């Protein structure tokens, strides 16, 4: 094969439904050895279908109706099924979004890896095992031997995706179809997996077809990019050129649908606190192995203090398991803090330990990630939105329904929908109902737990706009919990970053995004390639602007080697590094009780 000749050529590919509607229309692109080519576009643009067509695994009802796909110059469309089986998993491999769907939960990881290898290559069990272990080590799995003999269910999403990557790369495929491979993963894990994929494929010469809606990631990792809309190629070429200096309107529309930071700096003006959270711990009891064993607790949130200021949008970011949702749930009184207290401006207090607590519930409402699940399937949306008003003390049912209808109109749901049941609505409409229900009672604080994560990008845009509009119209205060930094950057006035149950950094949005201090915040930002508009129709990949971040003097971020980590965690405290910008760090010197507690006292008043 001559160098430079494409390893995979897709030539005027057409995929149609049985009814004759074209899902993919006249798509052509080439892939060179070791190259990453990205297919981008909204859902419904046909990007996944192209990947499936290359694997010759089109779902029922779809068929290739024209064009050709050639691997190393040999047409795949003419290959008989028997030959195809050798190619799939051998020359062409695939990784999908949900690794659990691709791994068999009842077979050990190692066995599944070896199965693929031994199917395609003539190796004995011993050699196969050695090669699998070596590959697991390459994808940085810490204890390959142990993982090899364990079941996939025991591992996190990131680990599973690593297994998938390791097992598909074992056979040195020529082409790897990666369909949203990291969409379900946390930012830092996503970055690690992408970097490993890039490194390994460079080495082996595998070309990756990256199917993704994440334009930032594509701009960061892909060499070339194909922009699709409705099954047609809108633009293709050098990934950065196509995405950062878009030539076609459609790419611009895609880029502009992404959240963007408002030019005016986040509202850093100090408003009066609406809620003061002081040193709360939320602990959960572990399920006991036996009735005789000791009760054990997991501290999901440890010693977290912050204020929510009246009228602001305070975002909580962090990876899954960081305790960000738990903080939100403590605010709506779903979890009782086991220590510390939550003080509301109207004098209501929820403190840890003691039972009982406030009889009258402060006006805190919640918007859920899964709007559909948060609505009673047996209530019309009108009834659902009227419901909080009952607890809010409006006795007349007619009045409640009138207010509910007004509110539904406000969130853009017309009269004709008021008697619908939730299942009759689309995801975006359901979230509108969820939002209407949260604010209809005139609550002060809205806890929004990943309110747009389950929605398609264009719907996300609409819901974010609605949230912003209602925020200013009603003077609401949001605690906005999200793992999506793009959204946070657009919406938040202030940002708090959580890691393993601790608050590690809190400050104005600009401070946290432009001058992050804590290593975890920095890692999080670095792991999330974000595209920003720098001029009309010119975009750039955002990068961290401050080159270094030293801990505040007399403090350190890492745990001193001589100290037990648990002890160091207890000593850590929040230190103000700039105006209204706090970061969690550990005093360098073991400074006895007094110094430590003094710092804690400081932090109690300020963040």
């Amino acid at each position, binding site marked *: 094969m001559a160098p430079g000749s494409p390893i995979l050529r897709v030539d005027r590919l057409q995929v149609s439904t049985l009814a004759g509607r074209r899902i993919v229309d006249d798509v052509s692109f080439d892939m060179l050895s070791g190259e990453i080519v990205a297919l981008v576009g909204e859902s419904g643009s046909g990007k996944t279908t192209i990947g499936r067509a290359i694997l010759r695994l089109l779902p029922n009802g779809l068929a290739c109706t024209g064009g050709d796909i050639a691997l190393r110059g040999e047409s795949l469309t003419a290959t008989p099924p028997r030959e195809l089986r050798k190619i799939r998993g051998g020359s062409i491999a695939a990784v999908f979004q949900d690794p659990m769907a691709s791994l068999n939960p009842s077979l050990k990881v190692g066995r599944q890896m070896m199965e693929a290898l031994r199917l395609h290559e003539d190796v004995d069990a011993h050699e196969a095992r050695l090669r699998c272990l070596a590959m697991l080590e390459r994808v940085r799995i810490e204890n390959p031997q142990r993982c090899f003999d364990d079941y996939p269910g025991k591992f996190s999403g990131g680990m599973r995706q690593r297994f998938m990557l390791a097992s598909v790369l074992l056979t040195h495929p020529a082409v790897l179809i990666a369909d949203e491979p990291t969409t379900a993963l946390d930012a830092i894990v996503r970055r690690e997996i992408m970097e490993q994929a890039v490194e390994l494929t460079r080495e082996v010469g595998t070309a990756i077809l990256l199917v993704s809606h994440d334009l930032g990631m594509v701009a960061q990792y892909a060499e070339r990019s194909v922009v699709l809309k409705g099954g047609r190629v809108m633009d293709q070429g050098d990934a950065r050129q196509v995405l950062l200096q878009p030539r076609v309107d459609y790419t611009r529309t895609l880029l502009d649908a992404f959240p963007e930071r408002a030019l005016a700096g986040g509202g850093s003006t100090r408003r009066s606190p609406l809620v003061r959270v002081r040193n709360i711990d939320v602990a959960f009891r572990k399920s006991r192995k036996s009735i005789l064993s000791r009760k054990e607790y997991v501290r999901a949130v440890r010693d977290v203090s912050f204020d929510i200021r009246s009228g602001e949008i305070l975002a909580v970011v962090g990876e899954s398991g960081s305790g960000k949702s738990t903080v939100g749930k403590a605010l*709506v*009184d*779903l979890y009782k803090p086991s220590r510390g207290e939550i003080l509301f401006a109207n004098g209501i207090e929820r403190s840890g330990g003691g039972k009982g607590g406030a009889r009258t*519930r402060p006006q*805190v*409402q*919640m918007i*859920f990630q*899964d709007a559909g*699940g*948060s*609505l*009673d*399937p*047996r209530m019309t949306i009108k009834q659902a939105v009227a*419901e*909080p008003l*009952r*607890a*809010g003390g409006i006795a007349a049912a007619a009045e409640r329904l009138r207010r509910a209808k007004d509110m539904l109109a406000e969130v853009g749901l017309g009269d004709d929908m008021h008697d619908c*049941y939730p*299942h*009759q609505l689309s995801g975006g409409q359901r979230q509108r109902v969820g939002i209407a*229900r949260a604010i209809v*009672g005139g609550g002060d604080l809205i806890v929004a737990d990943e309110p747009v994560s389950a929605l398609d990008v264009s719907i996300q845009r609409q819901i974010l706009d609605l949230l912003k509009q209602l925020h200013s119209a009603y003077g609401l205060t949001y605690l906005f919990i999200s793992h999506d930094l793009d959204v946070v950057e657009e919406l938040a006035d202030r940002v708090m970053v959580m890691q393993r149950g601790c608050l590690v950094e809190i400050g104005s949005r600009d401070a946290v995004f432009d001058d992050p201090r804590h290593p975890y915040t920095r890692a999080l930002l670095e792991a999330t390639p974000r595209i920003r508009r720098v001029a009309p129709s010119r975009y750039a990949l955002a990068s961290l602007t401050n080159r270094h971040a030293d801990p505040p003097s007399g403090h350190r971020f890492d745990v001193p080697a001589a100290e037990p980590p648990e002890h160091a965690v207890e000593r850590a405290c929040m230190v103000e590094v700039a105006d209204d910008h706090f970061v969690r760090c550990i005093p360098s010197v073991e400074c006895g009780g007094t110094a430590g507690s003094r710092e804690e006292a400081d932090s109690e008043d300020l963040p």
Partner: protein
Amino acid sequence: MKKTNLVVGGSIIVIVFAAALIGAIGTPYDPTQIDAADRLAPPSWSHWFGCDEWGRDVFSRTLSGAAITVAIAGLTTLLATGAGTIVGVSAGFLGGWLDKAVVAVMDALLAFPALVLAIAMTTLLSGASLAPVIALSVAYVPYVVRVVRTGVLTIRQADYITASSIMGNSAAYTLARHVAPNVVGLVTVISTAIFGWALLAESALSFLGLGLPPPAASWGGMLSDSRNYFADAPWLAVVPGLAISFSLLGVNLLGDGCRDLLDPRMERA
């Protein structure tokens, strides 16, 4: 399709209930009237379903049997689903030691096959006129509790229950307004199932001679008596047998139809 189930099942049940009503009010002949002249008379214009070995009119006995069977199955269903729903909802929603105790007792009851339990209970209660009803209710309560409790456990996890609590609704309100309406579908389906089981079990008890005492007509009893005359008078077996099958078919179709109708989410499918 779902409408067909409902319409066909509903029609059958209406016919069965109408038969039961007629059986209770008045039948063409006295179902216990013995007439030696008509002994084992085949079906004719005067005796549509023929006569049995005592010369009693099988049509009248079938109607009368319908009344008894429907009454026993109906009462059993009311008692079992009523008690089962209350216990199941409380156990599922309140949880804790109550739940543990309920599950233990129900598991113990479930360890016995329902019919065996019912036979044992009927024997213990022999004499009491409602013995079959009580025995069958006890036998079926665990099934209701199990289904309802599981349903409530699932519903309790749903975000809309969380949302209700965030709104400031009391537990009692949440139970009444959000949990109960969402178990109605389940309860309806299980109650039609139990009606069917009870109908069959009542016939089985009567067949075994544990139902209402002899002169009274019952489908199971009629079936049992017919065994000795099957070669000469097959209608004696066929008529009550068909009556049982027909009613069961109606109950099952109606149950499926109800489930489809009561679950708003099924609309799309």
